[in-house]
């Protein structure tokens, strides 16, 4: 098992320098902030809008951090995420980062990495994919699942195979079609909605993101499977991975207060169920054999 690397954390105020809606109610937020340690894929930040925010900060995975710019992709689901998504440019938010344990990228070297992401679970896996590609590794399969076409953050999906649960209204092959090849024309958001279209070159299919996973893993017995997304999706994918005997890593979410292993509010049972692990510090990235998950 990989030892946890304790990185030096930074607690500071950051300035909002960018905000752009990439998908329906989901924003790319850029913060100007110097962190004392590099951020690795899977690590997160506790972010607290200082004005009109919630009592507690909220955890968000780091999409990217370089040159003093921290990028987050924030979906509005409640008061905290809404406050962050709507913090005006130039205003300040409190940032505590980097937190948690990252994907053990060294262990992935030379092995085919299969990524399965859903919703904002894209964020840590997007970073993992870009770190792997940057170091010359291959990422043969990057699968992204969303419910509707409006949930697609177009510019983040280059190189991802997209699975939609609901056929888009403007599906080129007409109603009731279950698959669309990228060559056959990409679905676009309803005109006038101002929402992004699926990226050129991406492949889009209607059906669950786990549809072909078993097939993929059968052909790649030495694969590493990395998962982040809604619980039901991760559990389904993790079961398939376990049945195929491949190594499975999951990036989990839990309600957090401190983000630092202190309040014990984000605990889950460790494998065997006798002890607890914190999602914020022992995770959020776990190997399937560390926890009681599926």
């Amino acid at each position, binding site marked *: 098992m990989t030892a946890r690397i304790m990185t030096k954390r930074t607690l500071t105020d950051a300035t909002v320098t960018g905000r752009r809606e990439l998908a329906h109610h989901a924003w790319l937020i850029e913060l100007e902030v110097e962190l004392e340690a590099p951020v690795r894929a899977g690590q997160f930040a506790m972010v607290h809008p200082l004005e009109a925010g919630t009592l507690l900060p909220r955890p968000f995975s780091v999409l990217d951090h370089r040159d003093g710019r921290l990028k987050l992709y924030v979906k509005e689901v409640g008061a905290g995420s809404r406050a962050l998504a709507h913090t005006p440019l130039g205003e300040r938010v*409190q940032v505590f980062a980097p937190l948690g344990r990252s994907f053990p990228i060294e262990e992935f070297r030379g092995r085919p990495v299969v990524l399965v992401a859903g919703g904002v679970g894209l964020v840590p896996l997007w970073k993992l994919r870009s770190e792997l590609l940057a170091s010359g590794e291959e990422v043969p399969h990057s699968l992204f699942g969303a419910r509707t076409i409006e949930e697609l953050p177009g510019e983040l999906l280059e190189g991802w195979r997209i699975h939609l649960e609901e056929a888009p209204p403007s599906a080129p092959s007409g109603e009731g079609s279950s698959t669309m090849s990228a060559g056959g024309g990409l679905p676009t958001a309803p005109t006038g909605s101002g929402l992004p279209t699926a990226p050129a070159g991406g492949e889009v299919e209607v059906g669950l993101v786990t549809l072909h996973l078993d097939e993929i893993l059968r052909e790649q017995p030495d694969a590493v499977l990395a998962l982040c997304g809604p619980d039901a999706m991760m559990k389904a994918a993790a079961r398939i991975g376990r049945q195929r005997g491949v190594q499975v890593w999951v990036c989990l979410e839990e*309600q957090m207060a401190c983000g*630092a292993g202190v309040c014990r509010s984000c*605990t889950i049972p460790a494998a065997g169920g006798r002890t607890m692990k914190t999602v914020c510090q022992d995770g959020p990235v776990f190997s399937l054999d560390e926890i009681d998950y599926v």
Partner: protein
Amino acid sequence: MSEARSSGSASNPPLDPSQVDLRVTIGGVELPNPVFTASGAWGYGLEYLDLVDPARLGAVVTKTITVLPRKGNPQPRLRELPTGLLNSIGLENVGLGAFVRDKLPRLARHEVRTVVSLAGRREEEFAEMIGELSHHEGWVGVELNLSCPNVAEGGLDFGTDPRLVESITRRARAVLPDGKCLLVKLTPNNVPMATLARAAEAGGAHAISCINTVVGMEIDLDARRPVFPRGIAGYSGVGIKPIALAKVWEASHAVDIPVVGIGGIATVRDVLEFFVAGASAVQVGTALFARPDRAHRLIEELAAELAARGVRRPAELRAGD
């Protein structure tokens, strides 16, 4: 006391912050300032070494320790409300053995003034745990947690019976090594604070910690049942400050030993208000989750704020009767 109470009027000329004396003494233990971290809000005092120096705090009160490790309660454990938190952590902790082996030596090395929060399942267990602690360095006192609403056994049951509060305190005091202080943390629920505070004082407590969380509940309307599996949970944060102030007032009028005020403290103004209500020191809990360096900031702000008000010592702020 009466001398201190009569001074400190609002019209004092300002002082230089260096003239302010923040020291506070509890049971013969002198602490450099009256701002502590509350139990359960700052771990074992070692979790933020990369950010701040825990030795600058008046004291660190640890997460409550039990004889054996505890896993705590199932999820959900914590809910955020507009005015505070509801928690049902259930005293998850590493247990006394691991605490003295792994934490105390490090706390000693970092020269942290550690107050070890203790909870027992039996009356005698508190004293037994102090007996074990007395073989080790790295702590200045203990805080008996007689007030946790989140465990089925012990906790609140002990803490609402004044006779048990007194006898547990007495047994603990009997085995407490010289030079250590004994704090007793009381519940705001069910029993008048004055009754509990007098019981703790009669048992030999050096100070009263006041208050632990207020019993509360959140309802899942769709499911038509409480959100927490145990039903009740512990309410903390800004919303309980008025309750805490009233309980500190009550306790400080009932006993002669110092009262440590806890509940919803987030700003230096809050700290001053607790001094006015009769507290000799304060603990910061919930507010540390959003800013783990908040207690450190409060210590700095406190000296400046007292100086600006021309107040030399926090005790001068205490209201007359």
